[in-house]
C-alpha cells in the first residue's frame, strides 16, 4: 500500500516538474506559490513513507568522533546547548549523539547553555537520553547540568577564569562546591574537550573567540548548516572537527551505529532526515534549471 502511495506521489512530482519544464520553453515564469507547493510535497512524502539513505563519515566529522573515542575514560567533556527550539530539528540530533557517545565512553559530561532556551533543552536531553538509556549514571557524579546564564560571550569571558563567579549552583539549585563532578574544576581550562552545538549567536564562533583560543582548550562542535561554511576557517587549527547541518549529524550517527552494538537500534533523526533532504534538493535544482530555461527562451523570443 505504502509503495503505491510512494510511487504515485513521486510520479506527481516528476510529471509536475516535466510539465513546468516544457512550459518554460515558451519563456513563461513559474509563480512562487507553485514552487512553495512543490517544496512542501517533496518534504512531506519521504517523511510519510520513511525513505532513508546511507551515509559515510567525512574526515571533518570523523575528527570529533575519534577525539571522543580516544580520550581516556573519565575525561571531562562540556556540551554547550547554544540553540533554541526553532533550530532544534537540525542540531538536536548532534547534541543527542554527543551526549550518548560521551556517556557510553564513560566520560564526565557537563551541560550548559549560552542560550536561555538551551537550559531547558539540556534538561530535556537528560530526561530523554541519560535517565532511560544510562540508568547507572548519577547526576552530580557522571554528569551535571549547570544551565544558562545571561551575558552571551560575556559568560565565557568569566568562566574561562572561574566557573563559580558565574555559576553558584546547577539547574536544580545544588551548590557546585558540594558535587563530586566539580571537585577539581575551576574554570573552562579544566575541560578536556568542549562540544558546542549551535548555529546562531552566541555559538561556536564565540566559543572559539572567548574560550578555545584564549584558553587553549580543544573545541569541536555541531552547527546549523547555515553557519558551517563560516566555521571552516577555524578547522582544523581551532576546531578539531565540525558537524555541518543534518548531514554531519547523520554521518556521526552512522559512525556510532557502526562501532557500538548498543546503538544499533538508537533513534537516528539525522539519518531519517536525509530522505526529505535529497528530494527537496532535487526539486530546488529542477527549479533552477527551469528558471534558466525560461530566462533563455524569453530572451530569444525578444530577439
Amino acid at each position, binding site marked *: 500500500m505504502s509503495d503505491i502511495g510512494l510511487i504515485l506521489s513521486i510520479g506527481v512530482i516528476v510529471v509536475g516538474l516535466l510539465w513546468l519544464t516544457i512550459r518554460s520553453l515558451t519563456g513563461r515564469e513559474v509563480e512562487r506559490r507553485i514552487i*512553495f507547493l512543490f517544496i512542501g510535497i517533496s518534504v512531506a512524502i519521504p*517523511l510519510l513513507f520513511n525513505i532513508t539513505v546511507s551515509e559515510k563519515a567525512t574526515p571533518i566529522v570523523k575528527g570529533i568522533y575519534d577525539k571522543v573515542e580516544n580520550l581516556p575514560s573519565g575525561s571531562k567533556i562540556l556540551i554547550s546547548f547554544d540553540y533554541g527550539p526553532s533550530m532544534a530539528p*537540525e542540531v538536536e540530533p548532534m547534541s543527542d549523539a554527543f551526549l550518548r557517545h560521551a556517556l557510553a565512553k564513560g566520560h564526565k559530561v557537563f551541560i550548559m547553555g549560552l542560550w536561555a532556551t538551551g537550559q531547558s533543552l539540556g534538561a530535556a536531553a537528560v530526561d530523554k537520553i541519560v535517565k532511560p538509556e544510562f540508568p547507572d549514571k548519577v547526576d552530580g557524579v557522571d554528569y551535571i547540568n549547570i544551565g544558562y546564564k545571561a551575558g552571551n560571550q560575556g559568560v565565557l569571558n568569566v568562566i574561562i577564569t572561574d566557573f563559580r563567579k558565574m555559576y553558584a549552583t546547577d539547574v536544580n539549585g545544588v551548590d557546585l562546591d558540594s558535587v563530586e563532578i566539580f571537585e577539581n574544576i575551576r574554570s573552562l581550562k579544566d575541560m578536556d574537550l568542549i562540544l558546542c552545538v549551535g548555529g546562531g549567536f552566541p555559538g561556536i564562533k564565540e566559543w572559539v573567540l572567548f574560550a578555545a583560543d584564549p584558553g587553549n582548550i580543544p573545541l569541536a562542535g555541531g552547527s546549523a548548516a547555515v553557519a558551517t561554511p563560516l566555521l571552516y576557517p577555524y578547522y582544523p587549527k581551532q576546531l578539531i572537527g565540525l558537524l555541518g*547541518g543534518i548531514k554531519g549529524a547523520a554521518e556521526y550517527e552512522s559512525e556510532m551505529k557502526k562501532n557500538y552494538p548498543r546503538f544499533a537500534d538508537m533513534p537516528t533523526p539525522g539519518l531519517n532526515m536525509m530522505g526529505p533532504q535529497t528530494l*527537496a534538493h532535487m526539486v530546488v535544482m529542477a527549479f533552477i534549471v527551469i528558471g534558466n530555461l525560461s530566462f533563455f527562451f524569453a530572451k530569444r523570443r525578444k530577439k
Partner: protein
Amino acid sequence: MDRSRRISLIIFAGIIILFILSWIIKSTTLLNVGTESLLSIRDAFFITFAAFLTLAIFSFLYKDNPYYKFAEHLFVGVSAAYWMCVGFWSTFVGNFIPKVSTTLSNFFEVPPKEFDIFYFIPLILGLMLLMRLSPKGGWLSRWSLAFIVGTTAGLNLIRYLRTDFITQVSNTFIPLLVDWNGIGPFFSDFSLSASGQFVMTLGNWVIFIGVFSGLIYFFFSKEHKGFFGHASRVGIWVLMITFGASFGYTVMGRVSLLVGRLTFLFKDWLGLIS
C-alpha cells in the same frame, strides 16, 4: 452581507469546528494511552492550538490573512514578555541583586554574595536610561548610551583585531607548494586527500589569491582601474563563488526545519507516522 465576507465566515466556522473536533479526538487518544483525564484535555488543547498556529504561519505563504495576523500578534506579545521575564530572573535577580542587597536576595530566595559597590554603576546608568521617559531628563540617557557605545567600541576593537584579523591573517600563511616530491608525483594524484599534492597546492593558491584579490575589492580610496580593476574583478568572482556556495550549502538546514515542523504535524498532532 456580501459574498467574500460570507465565505470568510464559513471558513472561520469550519476552522472552529475542526479545532474542537481535533481537541476531542486528541483528548480521547491521550486518555487511551493512560494520561490523567484533566491533563489529557489540557495537552490535547495545547497540541491542537500549536498545530493551528503552525498552519496559520504557513498560510502566509499563500497570502496575508487574519489567521496569520492572529498568530503574528500573539507571538509578538508572548515573546516580548518571555525575554523580559528571563532577563529579569537570570540577570537582574541572578547577577545583580545578590551583589547589592541581602534583604532583596532573601526576598527572591537567591544566595547573597559579597557586597560590591561597583554594581551601582549599572544601576545608575540603567536609571539614567529610563530618564528618556521623562520629557526633561532625556539628555541624561545619552550618558548611559555613551557608556554602552564606549564599551562596545573598546571590546570590539581588540576582539576583532585579535581573532578575526590576526588569526585569519596567520591562517593565510600556508605553503604555496605542498610537500614537493618532483613533477611526477605532483601530477599523478588529483584526489582530495592528504596525498593529493596538486589539489592541496591548487587550493592554497586559490586561497592566497582569493583573499588578496577580495581585499583589493574592498579598497575604498582607489579607483578600480588598471591592476586594481583586474584584481578587484577576480575578487568579485571569488566573492560570488563564496555566496553561491554558502547559499547552496544552507538549503539543507532550511529543509531540516520544515521537516521538523511537518514531523510535528504528522506525528504529534495527526499521529500519521510513528
